């Protein structure tokens, strides 16, 4: 069922020269290639339809949209008939009405009679068409063969499929293919026996369906219906907001009833997602009202004490008094804070403001530290701005995609579907990844090159690709001469040309056959518009920043930057990683990536905030943890972040957290970090507040309040309260005022306001006088830094080496149904797809160890040991094992180490030397974890504590 707000034009928009035609006596001008149906709806008319919707190519099966066209015989379908100059179309006539009525009667003859029983209700397009045409009776009766007793498929946790309501229009099948790119659905049988089936008629849950919901949304009847709609009934209003999961930042129409979300429908005019969604964004919002939500502030003196429920005021006063006591005792620099990539821009801005202005220290950092901080460093130094260069739409003009260390169909699924669409149109694909990710080979998509490198050898690979570009004359000399600094380029060119960087020499390091590297390099450099998309498989390495520099070098050398279809595109993990970084969350930078040593910028902030900001950099997250262990760091305010689960070397992290005298955690749930906290500020979900998120393409989108905060305060209000208790007033009454302050202080945001966001829908920064409506493509005529700067990127092996004791390399990643630490998705029905982290191991390595699929295996590294279940698969190469980190009890980060990127301290999650052995019981850490977890839950359940449930 479509969105309440949708005005469906029946067929997709096209771009072309103007064509004027006559529809029902009116002159209508539309782009060439437009269907007659779309032209009619654009002119304000409406042609009855069932199989057509403007997110799908015209199909022409329902025979309802027939029209009369002067000079043409018969009654052509308006959805498949394109406009032509001077065409005269008649959309209404007695004959057309008669034909349409006949078609509708046939449909109704095998359709549930009583729409009151159907969750679609009055939104069933079939009943709407019947009503519009005045069809009240079916002449054929209902006694003949029909599908009215078909079994309903209730297997999917979020939607049902009721074949009795299905009109076999194929919209679901086409949505699965065209929009999602999974091709899980098909029409089985012929004629009367035709029916929609998932995969080999396995039921939705057991099929290849990824539960994106595109089929449900496209269904014109109640055949595919959300269970929430059946339970809650029809919504009362629609609120446009932004998804709080990954960095794609999908726009949604939240359909709401009594402050409850009935459905989330992706906005067709959403510029990031173009009307598509994934299983998380569309369906997995139930965590927001989960019984585990904590809705009252709580305090305790020691982490072994029971939690005590208090008022917000008491919580603020207690936290503030503790922070002031600690600063008085241990010094101003003994405290700090962490901003969240899951919270809004305004909230991240306020937390760093509180730390810098109210606490008087620059000890503030953000969870981008552990994901994309190398992106900031690498792109700032080469191109001049710490962000991706393109809009997502740009991929539709890409000829060659180079995907490095990213798994878009799992981690950024809506954009992954866009990529697949472009690949089906003929774009070429190079995947550089140790694993065989879905994009390497899936229905209608096959990578031209899969560079299956060994984890930790990215820089060796990018250097060997650059070697081919440089030595085979594939440099775009004109671009480099015009746009880049000549000296550094020359040094880079000479370095790349060295024989040690050749694919043949590097093959021993990377494990990638030289011929593949040469072929891939030639394809990227000469195949037309080349775009690089990368993820945490690039950044989370000891040479993460070096690799980002190498990627930017390659894009500049081949002229693949500064226009649509090309560019360097980091795929950000969390919804607001880009935004949290933009907002000045790093300890050495103020908002807009301006270094603290810039006295002019500092003075601007000093004047606005009425304080004197310290000019020295503060501690990064890993430094804070180290300092906590050495006794010089004693208190931390953590908003919407869970380092006890997400950061590497868990035992080191929890030891550091345990040594703090005051840890304030602000979150929806008692997360792993909160188990070490002394103050708990109950958080607010994205449904409970106003604000903005900035996605991976620098797109600022509005988050709009749908329900009142369960805890009474939105996160930004809690930060304001905490600041006030510290004696620093932040007199905002609405997040729009915070954005006004951000705009005042940040050059790239000068033109941003809530009024403009409401008017334009979203804005890609920079948005200022030079670009009042934002900047989809960066570095068009010149780089932000002026001339592009090349850097020599020597490959340096990680100090994390395999040996006899630790012979395998563990690397980590994500899965579609779960999200990061899983705090949200574990509290939804998404656990039906994935309820535990598993270790993927190659059959060869498994056999050597006597391990079969499903066995419990101990994974032992230099940092620790955990036990997980084995998944034996050749998706991973021999010598490499892989796991996800969505479940705290898995302890994936018990085994990751303290190694980190040389420039940013981003942890080297992707390379850990391990041994794997078959075991029969949990690890010692897991036993301790369970015990400690149970103790903390007991302390939460103690009298005086309170949760939503």
């Amino acid at each position, binding site marked *: 069922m479509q969105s309440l707000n949708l005005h469906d034009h029946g067929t997709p928009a096209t771009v072309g020269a103007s064509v004027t035609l006559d529809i029902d006596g009116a002159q209508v001008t539309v782009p060439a290639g437009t269907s007659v149906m779309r032209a009619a709806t654009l002119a304000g008319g409406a042609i009855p339809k069932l199989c057509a919707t403007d997110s799908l190519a015209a199909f022409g099966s329902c025979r309802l949209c027939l029209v009369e066209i002067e000079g043409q015989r018969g009654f052509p379908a308006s959805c498949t008939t394109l406009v032509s100059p001077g065409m005269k179309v008649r959309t209404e006539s007695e004959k057309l009405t008669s034909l349409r009525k006949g078609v509708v009667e046939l449909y109704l003859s095998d359709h549930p009679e009583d729409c009151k029983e159907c969750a679609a209700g009055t939104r069933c397009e079939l009943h709407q068409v019947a009503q519009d045409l005045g069809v009240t009776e079916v002449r054929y009766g209902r006694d003949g063969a029909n599908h009215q007793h078909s079994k309903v498929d209730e297997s999917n946790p979020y939607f049902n499929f009721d074949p009795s309501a299905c009109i076999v229009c194929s919209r679901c099948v086409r949505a699965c293919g065209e929009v999602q790119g999974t091709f899980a659905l098909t029409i089985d049988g012929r004629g009367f026996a035709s029916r929609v089936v998932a995969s080999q008629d396995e039921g939705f849950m057991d099929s290849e369906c990824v539960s994106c919901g595109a089929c449900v949304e496209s269904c014109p009847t109640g055949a595919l219906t959300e269970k929430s709609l059946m339970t809650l009934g029809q919504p009362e209003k629609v609120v446009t907001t932004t998804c709080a999961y990954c960095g794609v930042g999908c726009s949604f129409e939240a359909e709401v009833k009594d402050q409850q979300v009935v459905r989330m429908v992706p906005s067709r005019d959403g510029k990031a997602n173009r009307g598509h969604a994934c299983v998380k964004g569309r369906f997995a919002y139930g965590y927001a009202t989960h019984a585990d939500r904590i809705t009252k502030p709580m305090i305790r003196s020691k982490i072994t004490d029971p939690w005590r429920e208090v008022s917000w005021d008491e919580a603020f006063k207690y936290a503030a008094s503790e922070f002031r006591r600690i600063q008085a005792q241990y010094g101003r*620099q003994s405290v700090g804070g962490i901003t969240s990539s899951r919270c809004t821009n305004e909230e991240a801005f306020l937390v760093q403001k509180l730390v810098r202005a109210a606490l008087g220290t620059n000890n503030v950092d953000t969870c981008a530290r552990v994901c994309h901080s190398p992106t900031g460093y690498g792109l700032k130094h080469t191109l001049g701005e710490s962000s991706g260069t393109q809009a997502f739409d740009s991929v539709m003009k890409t000829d060659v995609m180079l995907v490095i260390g990213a798994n878009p169909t799992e981690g950024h699924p809506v954009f992954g579907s866009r990529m697949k669409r472009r690949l089906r149109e003929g774009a070429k694909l190079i995947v550089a990844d140790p694993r065989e990710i879905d994009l390497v080979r899936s229905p209608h998509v096959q990578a031209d090159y899969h560079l299956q490198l060994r984890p930790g050898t990215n820089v060796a690979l990018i250097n060997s690709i650059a070697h081919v570009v440089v030595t085979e004359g594939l440099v775009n000399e004109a671009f480099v001469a015009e746009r880049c600094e000549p000296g550094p380029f020359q040094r880079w060119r000479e370095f790349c040309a060295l024989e040690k960087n050749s694919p043949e020499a590097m093959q021993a390091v990377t494990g990638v056959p030289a011929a593949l590297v040469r072929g891939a390099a030639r394809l990227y450099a000469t195949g037309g518009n080349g775009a690089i998309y990368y993820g945490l498989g690039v950044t989370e390495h000891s040479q993460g920043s070096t690799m980002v520099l190498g990627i930017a070098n390659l894009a500049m050398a081949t002229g693949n930057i500064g226009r649509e279809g090309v560019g360097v595109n980091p795929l950000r993990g969390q919804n607001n990683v880009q935004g949290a970084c933009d907002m000045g969350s790093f300890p050495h930078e103020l908002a807009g990536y301006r270094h603290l040593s810039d006295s002019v910028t500092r003075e601007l902030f000093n004047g606005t905030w009425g304080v004197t900001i310290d000019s*020295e950099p503060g501690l990064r997250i890993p430094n804070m943890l*180290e300092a906590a262990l050495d006794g010089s760091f004693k208190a931390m305010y953590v908003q919407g972040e869970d380092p006890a689960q997400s950061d590497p070397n868990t035992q080191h992290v929890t030891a550091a957290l345990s040594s703090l005298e005051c840890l304030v955690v602000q979150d929806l749930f008692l997360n792993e970090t909160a188990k070490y906290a002394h103050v708990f500020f109950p958080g607010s979900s994205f449904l409970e507040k106003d604000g903005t998120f900035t996605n991976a393409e620098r797109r600022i989108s509005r988050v709009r309040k749908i329900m009142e905060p369960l805890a009474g305060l939105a996160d930004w209000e809690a930060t304001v309260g905490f600041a006030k208790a510290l004696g620093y007033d932040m007199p905002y009454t609405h997040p729009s005022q915070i954005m006004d302050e951000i705009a005042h202080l940040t050059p790239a945001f000068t033109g941003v306001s809530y009024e403009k966001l409401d008017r334009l829908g979203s804005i890609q920064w920079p948005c200022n006088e030079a670009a009042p409506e934002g900047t989809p493509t960066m570095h068009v005529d010149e780089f932000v830094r002026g001339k592009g700067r090349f850097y*020599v990127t020597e490959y340096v092996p990680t100090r994390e080496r395999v040996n006899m004791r630790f012979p395998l390399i563990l690397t980590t990643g994500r899965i579609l149904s779960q999200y990061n630490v899983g705090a949200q998705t574990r509290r939804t029905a998404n656990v039906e797809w994935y309820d535990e982290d598993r270790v993927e191991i190659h059959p060869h390595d498994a056999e050597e160890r006597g391990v079969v699929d499903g066995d419990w295996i101990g994974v032992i590294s230099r940092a620790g040991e955990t036990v997980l279940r084995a998944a034996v698969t050749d998706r991973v190469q021999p010598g490499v094992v892989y796991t996800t980190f969505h479940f705290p009890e898995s302890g994936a980060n018990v085994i990751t180490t303290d190694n980190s990127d040389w420039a940013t301290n981003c942890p080297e999650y992707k390379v850990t030397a391990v041994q794997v052995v078959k075991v029969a019981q949990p690890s010692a850490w897991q036993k301790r974890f369970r015990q400690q977890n149970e103790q903390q839950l007991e302390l939460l359940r103690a009298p005086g504590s309170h949760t939503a449930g």
Partner: protein
Amino acid sequence: MNIQNLVNMANDMSNFFNSAAGEADAPREIASFITRHWDPRMRSQLIEHGKSGGEGLYPATAAAVKLLVPPGPRPA
């Protein structure tokens, strides 16, 4: 702070800047990077380590440590 971690971090910079900036300029680049990105207490500790022999520091790192300016007094 664990001095070995600080030494490792600084040495990792030396691995980068030795090739990116050249061996002659690497110490200056490393010192600048540390000054711009490290909390003063970390910087002070590394300076002290350098003064006490600088065990474990790569040559460029050791040279960089000598260029580091000790942080001034911090606001109380």
